[in-house]
């Protein structure tokens, strides 16, 4: 039976100064990619100065270039369909920070959720979809930013497969020819949470509320840090460089307390197919392996995630816990949504917590956010729209 682990609040901010030994570990895919580019085999979407890149260290000590400007949003179906506050918060911050980007209709899903859930695709299909979307960013002269962790993981894998297999490249080139596109590969595959991570101190400057009383538990996304792990950000100032730093980084930068719990490494129970068709497994996993430890061990006020599926799974499955005596509840939101809350974004119009199942109101009250006022305003706004009013958009399509 789990017991409170109160003394582990300091763990996340622990630092360490070990040395990575250069030249060991897995071969660096980036060098091979550049070789292919030199041979004219592929085109590479480079991160240019105009992308205002910042650097972060990955698991084995490589420097990863994270572009922060001139980005092409590769949205996530789960986020847009289910947790709209998720992409909206990203755009909200981009506007706040005065960064350039494009969000458009010419983008498909990465199709990897379907693949990992059902197996109804193949590497050629996955890689072609990936390249199509990459090429769209390329032709606009922008760098793609991926919102979903599964997209991120899948695209990392597709990049590696494309770099390593000529046959696959040829297949994909053939398909690209048919749709009038080319084989392009981005220099780095970048997840929005990495963008948040490298800009976390900039973001923290926008902070409106004091979070020092808020205890946060972080749920890292498997497809972020477990798939192609060498590409993930680890920071020696965060968890002593032992756990992926994104999400924890922004929570710390915002001044919240990050508590450890015993099932940090566990997945959320999404299981791709399971969340839709076998929720028996998903909900058991959520309650037993994630929510209960988060509440019992860490007394957590909020669970912070970095991915679509995790947010949905952890949020939606708490209510049914009552059926089997799981009384623990904790609001769930992504790191960027939490940051937006802290920086004064509207609870309803921007962060859109109204779509969430678990009760997030006590958290708002703890932070000092007047959610009732927001709710009133939102209701009035809806009436306005119903009467034929126009949406106040964060962004308009480029003409």
């Amino acid at each position: 039976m789990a017991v409170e682990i109160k003394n582990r609040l300091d763990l996340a901010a622990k630092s360490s100064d070990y040395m990575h030994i250069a030249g060991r570990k897995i071969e660096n895919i980036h060098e091979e990619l550049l070789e292919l580019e030199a041979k004219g085999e592929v085109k590479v979407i480079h991160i240019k100065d105009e992308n205002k890149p910042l650097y972060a260290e990955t698991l084995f000590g490589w420097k990863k270039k994270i572009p922060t400007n001139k980005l092409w949003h590769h949205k996530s179906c789960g986020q847009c369909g289910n947790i709209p506050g998720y992409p909206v918060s990203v755009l909200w911050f981009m506007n706040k920070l005065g960064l350039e980007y494009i969000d458009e209709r010419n983008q498909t899903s990465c199709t990897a959720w379907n693949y990992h859930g059902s197996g109804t695709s193949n590497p050629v299909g996955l890689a072609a979809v990936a390249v199509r979307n990459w090429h769209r960013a390329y032709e606009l002269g922008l760098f793609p930013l991926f919102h979903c962790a599964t997209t991120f993981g899948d695209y990392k894998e597709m990049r590696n497969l494309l770099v390593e297999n000529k046959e696959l490249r040829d297949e994909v080139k053939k398909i690209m020819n048919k749709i009038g596109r080319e084989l392009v590969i981005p220099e780095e595959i970048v997840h929005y949470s990495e963008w948040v991570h490298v800009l976390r101190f900039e973001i923290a400057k926008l902070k409106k509320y004091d979070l020092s009383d808020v205890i946060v538990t972080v749920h890292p996304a498997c497809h972020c840090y477990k798939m192609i792990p060498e590409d993930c950000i680890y920071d020696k100032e965060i968890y002593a460089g032992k756990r992926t730093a994104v999400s924890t980084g922004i929570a710390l930068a915002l001044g919240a307390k990050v508590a450890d719990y015993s099932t940090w490494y566990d997945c959320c129970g999404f299981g791709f197919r399971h969340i839709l068709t076998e929720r028996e497994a998903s909900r058991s996993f959520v309650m037993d392996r994630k929510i209960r430890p988060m509440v019992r061990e860490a007394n957590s006020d909020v669970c912070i995630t970095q991915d679509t599926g995790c947010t949905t799974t952890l949020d939606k499955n708490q209510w049914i816990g009552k059926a089997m005596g799981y009384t623990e509840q904790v609001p769930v939101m992504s790191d960027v949504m939490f940051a937006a809350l802290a920086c004064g974004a509207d609870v309803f119009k921007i962060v859109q917590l109204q779509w969430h199942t678990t009760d997030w109101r006590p958290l708002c009250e703890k932070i000092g956010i007047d959610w009732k006022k927001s709710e009133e305003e939102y209701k009035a706004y809806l009436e306005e729209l119903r009467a034929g009013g126009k949406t106040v958009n964060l962004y308009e399509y480029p003409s």
Partner: protein
Amino acid sequence: MPENILVIGGGPAGLHAANELAELGVSVSLVERDAFIGGNPKKFKYKFLFPDLQPAENVIGELIKKAESNKNIRIYYSSEVTDFKENGKKFDVTIKSPKGTETKTFNSVIVATGFEHFDPATDSKYSYQLFDDVIDIKDLEKMMGEGNFNRPSNGKPPRNVAIILCVGSRDRHVGNQYCSRVCCTVSVKQAIELKEHFPEMEVYIFYMDIRTYGFYEDLYWKAMEEHDVQIVKGRVAEITSGPDNTVICKGEDTLLRGPFEIPFDMVVLASGMEGGPQSPEMSKKLGIELDEHGFLKPANITLSPFKSNKDGIFLAGACTGPKAIVDAIVEGGAAAMNAYIYAKKNAQ
């Protein structure tokens, strides 16, 4: 005029080689990067050596005393070889020490630059440096050498301890595919010492294969039969926070085919041995071959394990691969004899 022989590295192998050569009347120059000699056993304060659990001081202290008292041996502390040139069958070597730089001609050279302990901090799954109570083999050796058997986090005796084998060995993630040979034996030795100090403590060893080869097996049997050390088959996959200030080791018990998540007061990582940065450095400076594991490569691993691929340069000890102190000493002797023969032949 006596032969001049250079020994690089003042660990067990280098010291023994130097002592043997000095006995033969050779003039030995011993270059040591640290301010002391005795190598890793001295540096990390090893307490007892297997298999007979004699105090490390008896062995290492004896080697140091001999070297320091022999006037045929000149020891360069805190020094390094900065320049190395072949001069016919001889070698012109520049040694940089705090006292200055000097260039000498040597008839032959023995490389005994030893190994480095694998740093478990570079393998994230073990949470080393994240949890105070997760320590490694050399930390524990040092603690025990100082008479401290308590938990680093709170100074209290641990109720149970997990020892995790194959940390940094047999793992492609960290780039080390080889078996480090001695960690199993050191671990069972440490388990015995822990149990002797705290008989009530529970000690568990998580293993994939236990490789206490040869007579070292005696220690393994002793640990089980006399000290009730429990072995559990399964490598640990994760270490996380546990209740009451413990850390939880998670893994699969491959014999029961089920998951375990056990809280421990202290976890000891049996980190392996690596060639360290000094091996490629030697390879570059001396122009000798490096193997795919990051150690120096013997000319013929079976016939002449103590020879480098270059005539006149000999290898001894853990610079050619993980080995026990006794093997390092044996190789020191063998390298000394071969270096002496080479020097004698080509003295004119």
